[in-house]
């Protein structure tokens, strides 16, 4: 076994352990919840999606490294329900009663963004005690967006379904309130603006949960519920029937295309090799073409749909700006353009090549995949004088204003403005995933610590003080360690700066799902960019 593989397998073990924290976040409350005859959030999702459907869980490590449980008391992801790709958002009632903390809010907003950008129907599986009150100041004001998103989705003809399994009170009542279809579970759902104690305080009225917000009441009297489910299974059955009747059509699928017919080949090289490919030390470069050929469709001829794939990856401008490799391929039958760092640094030629390539993709309405392994844009006198800023700006201009869907995978390094130019989180890729080998920060930890030392030395010198290099050493080491830690994928994932850390071998499947999801809407490239500083 290669050293790279050993190192990667170790990281994958860690990943699995971190994911298990999210799965087991409810601890003893999981058993207690089940004893009450209730299903867990994940069990509800398993039942909701088609029996053979994949489920791409998104942001499973949200809240990692925070005071809150890993997963942020929400389970969210994309699954296929009755043949329709849906965004599923399920409260985890075993984690503090499903109370929403600031990370839950961030996670749910990101889920809403994904649903909105890709035109996915949303199914909320609701059972939450509401906001985590100690952190209410971080939740209350921005939290209103959740309800706004639901009704905006509806206005855009993207249906929303709410299945209420338990508490959904106060603000939470607006989740079913704003949804197109509402299903409530008999003797479990509790949907009201104010419970009996608050009502008593406000108006003196004596009442009870069931008459204020029970499923029977809402289904028979208030009309806030469309379906009364006899139990949780029945609620999920009804939700599936609702989705089955959405008459959903994917506007972005070209009939007869390989993506529509499944007429394409698996990669020419075994994705398993990806574990050997990525160096455990990111200073060692690796050829991204080796990764690309293990992710994209293989060569296929004699296509029944008349769409032969004679070459797996057609590289564009192979002799120019060779530190960035760009070209065309197909992934699960979807045509894509790929930009991958071949040698970490981006120089003027690479930036210009990228800008041109992004425009070409927009010209032909083709999604783009960015594969990161970059240390950033080149620095130095020659490069500054050569216009690295304006060339980098061209690339960032192109990335920013491109309207074809972008997918980003951080394979290795993603430092400095390279993260921006290669379509980092701030540039709104439709999906962004990281490999366990990824690292992201403003610059490499050693460089950053070195820079700090230089700045400190200059500062001391300007004050005419001697610089205590020995004394600065522990500070430098601490900074380096801190930056190193902060650049790790779990930290970034915990802060919802990616959509998940994935096993490199799953990259093809993950991107295949993403491209299929993206095809729910037509792909429309943009030819109108900002001013290119030429």
């Amino acid at each position, binding site marked *: 076994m290669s050293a790279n593989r050993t190192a990667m397998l170790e990281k994958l073990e860690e990943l699995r352990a971190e994911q298990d924290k999210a799965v087991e976040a409810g601890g003893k409350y999981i058993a207690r919840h089940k004893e009450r005859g209730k299903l867990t959030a994940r069990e509800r999702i398993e039942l909701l999606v088609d029996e053979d459907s994949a489920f791409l869980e998104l942001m499973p490590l949200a809240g990692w490294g925070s005071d809150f449980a890993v997963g942020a008391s929400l389970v969210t992801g994309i699954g296929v329900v009755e*043949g329709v790709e849906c965004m599923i958002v399920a409260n985890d009632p075993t984690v503090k009663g499903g109370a929403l903390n600031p990370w839950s809010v961030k996670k749910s907003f990101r889920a809403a963004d994904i649903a909105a950008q890709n035109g996915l129907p949303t199914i909320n599986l609701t059972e939450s005690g509401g906001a985590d009150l100690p952190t209410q100041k971080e939740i209350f004001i921005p939290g209103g967006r959740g309800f706004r998103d639901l009704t905006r989705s509806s206005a855009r003809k993207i249906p929303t379904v709410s299945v209420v399994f338990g508490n959904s009170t106060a603000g939470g009542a607006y989740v079913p309130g704003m949804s197109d279809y509402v299903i409530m579970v008999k003797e479990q759902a509790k949907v009201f603006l104010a419970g009996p104690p608050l009502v008593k305080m406000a108006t003196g009225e004596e009442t009870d949960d069931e008459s204020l917000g029970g499923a029977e009441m809402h289904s028979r009297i208030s009309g806030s519920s469309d379906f009364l489910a006899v139990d949780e299974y029945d609620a999920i059955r009804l939700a599936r029937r609702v989705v089955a009747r959405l008459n959903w059509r994917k506007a972005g699928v070209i009939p007869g295309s390989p993506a529509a017919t499944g007429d394409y080949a698996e990669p020419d090289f075994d994705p398993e090799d990806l574990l050997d490919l990525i160096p455990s030390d990111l200073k060692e470069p690796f050829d991204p073409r080796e990764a690309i050929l293990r992710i994209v469709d293989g060569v296929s001829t004699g296509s029944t749909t008349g769409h032969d794939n004679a070459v797996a990856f057609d590289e564009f401008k192979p002799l120019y700006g060779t530190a960035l490799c760009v070209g065309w391929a197909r992934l699960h039958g979807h045509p894509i353009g790929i930009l991958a760092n071949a040698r970490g640094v981006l120089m003027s030629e690479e930036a210009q090549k990228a800008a041109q390539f992004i425009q070409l993709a927009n010209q032909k309405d083709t999604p783009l995949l960015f594969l990161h392994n970059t240390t950033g844009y080149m620095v130095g006198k020659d490069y500054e004088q050569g216009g690295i800023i304006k060339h980098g700006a061209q690339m960032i201009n192109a990335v920013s204003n491109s309207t074809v869907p972008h997918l980003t995978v951080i394979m290795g390094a993603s430092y400095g403005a390279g993260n921006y130019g290669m379509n980092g989180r701030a540039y709104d890729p439709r999906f962004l995933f990281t490999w366990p080998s990824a690292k992201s920060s403003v610059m490499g930890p050693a460089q950053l610590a070195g820079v700090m030392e230089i700045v400190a030395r200059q500062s001391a010198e300007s004050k005419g003080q001697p610089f205590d290099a020995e004394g600065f050493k522990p500070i430098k080491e601490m900074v380096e360690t801190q930056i190193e830690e902060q650049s790790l994928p779990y930290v970034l994932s915990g802060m919802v700066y990616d959509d998940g850390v994935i096993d490199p071998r799953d990259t093809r499947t993950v991107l295949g*799902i993403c491209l299929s999801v993206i095809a729910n809407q037509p792909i429309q490239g943009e030819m109108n960019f900002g001013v290119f500083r030429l």
Partner: protein
Amino acid sequence: MTLRDASSLGSAGTITRLLVANRGEIARRVFATCRRLGIATVAVHSDADVGLPFVTDADTAVRLPGNTPAETYLRADLVLEAALRTGADAIHPGYGFLSENADFARAVIEAGLTWVGPAPESIEQMGSKIESKKLMEAAGVPVLGNLTPETATEADLPMLVKASAGGGGRGMRVVRRLAHLSGEVDKASAEAASAFGDGTVFVEPYVERGRHVEVQVVGHAGGALVLGERDCSVQRRHQKVVEEAPAPHLPAATRAALHEAARAAAVAIDYRGAGTVEFLYDAEVDRFFFLEMNTRLQVEHPVTELVHGVDLVELQLQVAEGRAVDVTETAPHGCAVEVRLYAEDPAADYQPQSGRLTRFEIPADVEFGPLTGAGARLDSGFVSGSEVSTHYDAMLAKLIIWAPTRDAALRRTVGALRQAELHGLRTNREQLLEILQHPDVVAGTMTTALLADEDDALVGAGKDLPDGPEAQARAFFAATVAATAEQTSRRRVQQRIPSGWRNVEAAPRTLALDVAGTQVQVGWVRTRGGFAMVDVYDEVAGVTAPDPTPIAGVVGGWRVVVQHDGVTFPHDVFVVGDRVDVETPTGHVAVRRVPRFVDPADQVAEGSLLAPMPGSVVGVRVEVGDQVVEGQTLVVMEAMKMQHTVAAPYAGTVTELPASEGQQVEAGAVLAVVTAPEATEGD
């Protein structure tokens, strides 16, 4: 010109277009010979049979409106009209239905058509068992003495009451206590009257340990050919199940005497065409007795064809056309075994089964024709996808094996039956396998009492599942993998994203299977390139399978190669709707996918009694509100020509009674609901 002349000479000499007044495998069997001889073919069919292969096998087919035999295959007038309408110049009656109806034979001949069968007089002479016994006795053929109910004594026991006009075991009852005799006579008479329109019965001594040995004859203008004998001793309730030729362990002198007795019988009535003279052979005393003569082609005729190298249908046609028969009597060559596959559940009182044969593939070298060496011949009325209706005999097919020796033939029959893929309905396959491996059958010493002696233990029960939890778990896992792959193959989106893929594994995917009424949960997860089983039966672990491959040309067919602790077990799985049939390395397992969700509106109330099969309600014995005791008959249904009583499973109150007399119900329809007392109070 006498009528016999008309038949033996034929009206028009050479037959050019032949109508088969029958259905299923026998119609196909006759058509096969006709095709070889260049004779055009006409089928007649009921509405229920419209989709069966015999209808399209024929060059022309004529619909007989309706479904019951009385409306269709027994309507001599309609059959004759069909022949005239289609220009047929001959009619072959097959077996059963009109084959031994002298009036029909006469009408065919009078209409100027060739009747492929004996003269109507011969049918009449042999049609009455009482008369035929007298005739044979006069011709010197040994017969069992006649008894009369009035004079019978204890010493005559056991006795057999038989319908004079009977056949196929109907109207036949064994009497072991003298006191029961008159009652059994009455019952047999009533059964015979309803089945054959003639309530005449007679009583003879019952030979407990007899063998059924019958001799094939072909009467022609120059005499009678004797084409050896068949042993048809393996019977269930007087219906043959396994037949073979030649009969094993028959002393040469006895064999010769049997053949001569059969020849004498045929000659005595100047018999023309194919016929079978049936004898009861008492091996203990080496004596045989004439039972009856069947004046038609027998179901089991293929075993004779295979050991004598003849085509009995061709011989029938030669005789009917007035030609000389072109075969001579020869010693049997090798051994042929026939098994009859029925759509029935031997373990449930041979309850006939109806529905769709989702898959019906039996390995055979030829169909309906001669074999060139050791091998299998299939005479089947059904193919994959055929519907088996409730209106007719439940026989699906005959599998006939020829081999140089009896041992080899039996072993090959076992092998062929095991390889057969029979999905959709219960069949008697497992029973046949048990029979073929029974020591008496292997030794060739079986008697007609074989199945009764085994006290109904030889019914293939308990063979629904492979032995042991490991083989079962593998079968259920294979079913799950195939059902999942089938679902994935029909996806509208993410067509080739791996089934059940997860980036975060929590709970496994599950599929619930109904295994003969018991629910089994199969848990599985996606692996790279395949599936892994989790928690099916706690003790079974380490079971995986790579992605299954479709079986070419079979919709819903998947080959699942299950890996278990380093050993590979290929399973062929067939998914049709909720049905999943698994051909494991050791046998067939049928399971059903349990729907994940049940609409509460579809749930049946506890204590509901469901119709066991489609049929009609012929009696409702209770009213809503009645207190009933356990086992009390609530509703009587009639289906597949049998009555079924639906009884209270426990004492209680009849709270719902959707069944009404005369109502047609589907299988699974709620007939009545009985609520136990405590439940009534609780609610």
